[in-house]
């Protein structure tokens, strides 16, 4: 396998972007990534997109985006693994370059979620759960994570305030990210008193509905200097794992095996331990998700993740900084784009360009992207080459 580097990144400010279409969102982010490099020709493109069909009635995503990117006849592949589609696209692009099949690969992700009503978005997202044995009975995504949250609180004695601390911390980080959808400070009390969505989860425990796209340019590490003057960011670990998509089919409601196994695979490939990781973007689609993921990745023992956040261990200056970008919670969660944008934050951190949210001496970073209630997860580890 060849060493693979990220040499360019691009996205836009995320939000409820009425004026921007599905195709414009993607092309804007892709052009920003291309402009971040000296690349003129792409060999292959991978696009993470969960459900263009349900959100805007558009499938055949690889072809339409290649055309509108001004790259007619480009080889293009759309990748889907629910909310982990972006991370899966990065994994595919990594393999494409590592294998020697292509040299210049654009990895992108996109989701246009606000053209449908709240009901429509709930339905579209719920297709990532077991349609006949969860959704048929009324399960929603906040509902599934609420089942995990209650089980976690019952088992470990975690409190309402501890869940809220995750949202407060991520919004504090998002305040310093100009691309974040919700740049606003939250208090524990505001989260505790926000509207109930699926007891015990309230609206401020949930990541928002977002329009957005993100893109990266990958190339062989040996050619990185041709395309960028910045230090290349080498992808040193890549792990993926699946699990049953029905939450009830798992051994435990309070752990995430797909995350644990994907993390172990990525760390093994990178030759690192979790203590070597300086900054991590995790899939905080709900506050409880960040807590359980931080345990599954080995940062904290089972049942200690909630307290670790309250104690500041996951803040920018803590031992394991998590979601310096604001996470899905504050930055937004256009599902297909999220995994790609997580990698962009790590690139900014490793380049020392993250401004007020910069982690000091960040040399090694990690991203963890997750599909559904934990039915899939992708982990990447990167370092400055």
């Amino acid at each position: 396998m060849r060493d693979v580097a990220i040499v360019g990144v691009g996205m836009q400010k995320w939000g409820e972007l009425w004026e921007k279409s599905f195709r414009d969102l993607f092309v804007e982010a892709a052009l920003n990534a291309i402009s971040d490099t000296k690349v003129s020709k792409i060999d292959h493109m991978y696009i993470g997109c969960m459900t263009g069909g349900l959100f805007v009635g558009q499938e055949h995503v690889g072809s339409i985006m290649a055309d509108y990117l001004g790259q007619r006849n480009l080889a293009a592949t759309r990748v889907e693994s629910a909310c982990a589609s972006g991370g899966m696209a990065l994994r595919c692009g990594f393999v494409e370059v590592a294998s020697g099949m292509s040299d210049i690969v654009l990895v992108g992700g996109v989701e246009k979620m606000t053209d449908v009503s709240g009901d429509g978005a709930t339905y579209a997202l719920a297709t990532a759960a077991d349609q006949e044995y969860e959704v048929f009975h009324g399960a929603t995504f906040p509902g599934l994570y609420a089942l995990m949250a209650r089980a976690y609180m019952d088992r470990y004695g975690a409190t309402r305030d501890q869940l809220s601390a995750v949202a407060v911390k991520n919004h504090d980080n998002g305040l310093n990210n100009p691309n974040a959808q919700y740049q606003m400070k939250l208090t524990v009390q505001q989260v505790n008193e926000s509207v109930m969505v699926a007891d015990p989860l309230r609206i401020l425990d949930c990541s928002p509905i977002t329009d957005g796209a993100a893109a990266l340019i990958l190339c062989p590490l040996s050619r990185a200097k041709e395309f960028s003057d910045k230090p290349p960011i080498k992808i040193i670990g890549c792990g993926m794992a699946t699990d049953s998509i029905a939450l009830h089919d798992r051994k435990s409601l309070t752990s995430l095996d797909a995350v644990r196994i994907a993390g172990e695979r990525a760390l093994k490939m990178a030759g690192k331990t979790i203590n070597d990781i300086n900054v991590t973007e995790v899939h905080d689609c709900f506050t409880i998700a960040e807590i359980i993921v931080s345990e599954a990745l080995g940062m904290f023992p089972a049942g200690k993740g909630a307290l670790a956040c309250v104690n500041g261990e996951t803040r920018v200056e803590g031992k394991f900084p998590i979601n310096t970008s604001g996470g899905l919670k504050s930055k937004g969660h256009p599902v297909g784009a999220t995994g790609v944008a997580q990698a962009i934050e790590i690139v900014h951190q490793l380049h020392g360009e993250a401004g007020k949210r910069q982690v000091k001496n960040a040399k090694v970073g990690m991203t963890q992207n997750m599909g559904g209630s934990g039915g899939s997860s992708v982990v990447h580890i990167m370092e400055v080459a």
Partner: protein
Amino acid sequence: MFPARVAREMPHRYRLEAAKCRNCGAVFFPHRLICRECGHREFDTINISAIGKLISYTIIHTPASQFKDESPFALGICEFPEGVKITAQVVDIAAADIKTGMSLQIEFRRVQTDGHAGVIGYGYKFVPVI
């Protein structure tokens, strides 16, 4: 809901039929073609017990559109003696009386309807033990 899609699930939803692996005894609901535990491909059909234990629940306030009329409603996961866990609504009980660890009975109920003239989706819900 297409009628065939509903009909395919009837053995599980109407009769609580599960598949027990003839090699290792693992039980699956709904049935599978290959055992997740040992890879064996032959199963016996068994029925899930009527009473299970609630291991977690939530009260859903923002449901999908076909459940709007019932909102808020309780959704739970019960574990049954066969080792199977099932997700369904918890009904005929006030939200404040639902407690993790309580025993609940699984009962045949109407789960959702496809408009005024469409297919009625029957299945199961959890109710207090009589």
